[in-house]
């Protein structure tokens, strides 16, 4: 009974908050989610007869800064044409002044949920490699995401990996108008300790306001209020945190070293780029030496044996068989 009425309430709220897009091209359906600055709705594009996702600013009276953020997010999506980034289809303004844009509807689940059904480490790492590729692409285009976390990465039904939520991204070389760089409350420099985004309340979404990013996932230099000066290594940190979450509590030593380097507190101790991080993961996967870990002679031997296991076993089988033939062949 209670549940029903909750559902009914939610439905009522959906209906009343449902935005009226100008023209009759888009038919808005249910709400897909709500973020820091916008609400995302499933909609049908009648002209092209396909479903899309429409992100609409939540508040009509939103500040110029929020408008600017949504607009910038739309422009960044338009600029970043890549299979790992949702393409934007359309942009406009509601009668009440709210901005909206239409994008590809992603039918997937967030990375943290997606990996629940992927237990094999190599498969998880291959998903992570795709994420690195997309982030590297954005960096090459001069865009730093600044809010990488599992909730902002969607995995599609065919294993496609999409990086979402470019709302706090930084475009290198472009001034960031109106973005404050106020230092957060005490302890915020410790990114893993739950830095505050908005007046001390640690939340899991990117609050519009003081520090840009999500506590626990953003790089220390970003948490310290230097979001404007960050470089691609801030995203390498975010990737490192995601990797940390993907590899479980007891990863192999070489992998643990890769994680540690990626999420090092000082930017200069991290990988310089997402592709350097990806290259080390690739090396780990193929059983070659990784740059983040200096192995001893025995470890190296163990790794080589592991890597060429089957060939070594076949050679051994050959030697054993030859020895047996030699010993007993004429009996």
């Amino acid at each position, binding site marked *: 009974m209670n549940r029903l009425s909750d559902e009914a309430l939610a439905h009522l709220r959906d209906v009343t908050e449902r935005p009226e897009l100008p023209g009759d091209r888009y038919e808005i359906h249910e709400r897909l989610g709500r973020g820091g600055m916008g609400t995302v709705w499933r909609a049908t594009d009648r002209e092209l007869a396909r479903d899309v996702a429409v992100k609409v600013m939540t508040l009509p009276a939103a500040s110029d800064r929020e408008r600017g953020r949504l607009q910038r997010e739309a422009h960044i999506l338009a600029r970043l044409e890549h299979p790992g980034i949702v393409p934007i289809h359309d942009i406009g303004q509601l009668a009440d002044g709210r901005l909206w844009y239409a994008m590809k509807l992603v039918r997937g689940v967030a990375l943290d949920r997606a990996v629940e059904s992927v237990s094999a480490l190599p498969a998880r790492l291959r998903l992570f490699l795709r994420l690195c590729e997309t982030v590297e692409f954005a960096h090459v285009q001069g865009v730093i995401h600044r809010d990488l976390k599992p909730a902002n990465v969607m995995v599609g039904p065919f294993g496609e990996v999409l990086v979402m939520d470019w709302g706090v991204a930084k475009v290198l070389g472009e001034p960031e108008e109106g973005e404050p760089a106020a230092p957060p409350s005490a302890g915020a420099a410790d990114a893993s300790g739950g830095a505050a985004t908005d007046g001390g309340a640690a939340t899991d979404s990117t609050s519009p306001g003081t520090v840009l990013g999500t506590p626990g996932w953003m790089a220390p230099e970003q948490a310290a209020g230097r979001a404007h000066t960050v470089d691609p290594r801030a995203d390498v940190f975010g990737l490192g945190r995601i990797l940390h979450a993907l590899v479980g509590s007891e990863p192999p030593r070489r992998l643990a070293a890769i994680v540690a380097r990626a999420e090092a507190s000082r930017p200069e101790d991290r990988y310089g780029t997402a592709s350097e991080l990806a290259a080390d993961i690739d090396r780990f996967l193929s059983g070659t030496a990784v740059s983040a870990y200096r192995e001893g002679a025995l470890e190296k031997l163990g790794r080589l044996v592991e890597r060429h296991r*089957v*060939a070594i076993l*076949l*050679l051994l*089988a*050959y030697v054993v*068989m*030859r020895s047996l*033939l*030699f010993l007993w*062949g*004429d009996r």
Partner: protein
Amino acid sequence: MNRPLLGVLLGLVLGALDGSTAWFTAPELRPEVLGIVFGSCTKGLLVGLVTGFAVRKTGSLLRGLVVGTIVALAFTIPIAIMNANYYDNATYYWKIILPGAITGMLVGYATVRYGRRAQPRGA
């Protein structure tokens, strides 16, 4: 290195090694060991070439193993039968077939694992 070439090189090397073991495993054949090594190299070369060519596009190591074994057996069994009849010594079946099969597996596996995969046509 492409797979047929890798197969040929592996076949030659393994064939040479396998042939020279006759010095120890069949002392009665020592006077003929050069001929045996030559024959074994030729067999290895052909097995490597055929296997490397047959698996040039596959991504499956198991397929490499199976193809290598079958090709090696196809070359080895007739040789084993001829030798066993010629020398009237049934142990030659095993002395030739078993090593042949394992080296075939090794060639098949190694060409897929370490050789460069050929791109499918049009790719």
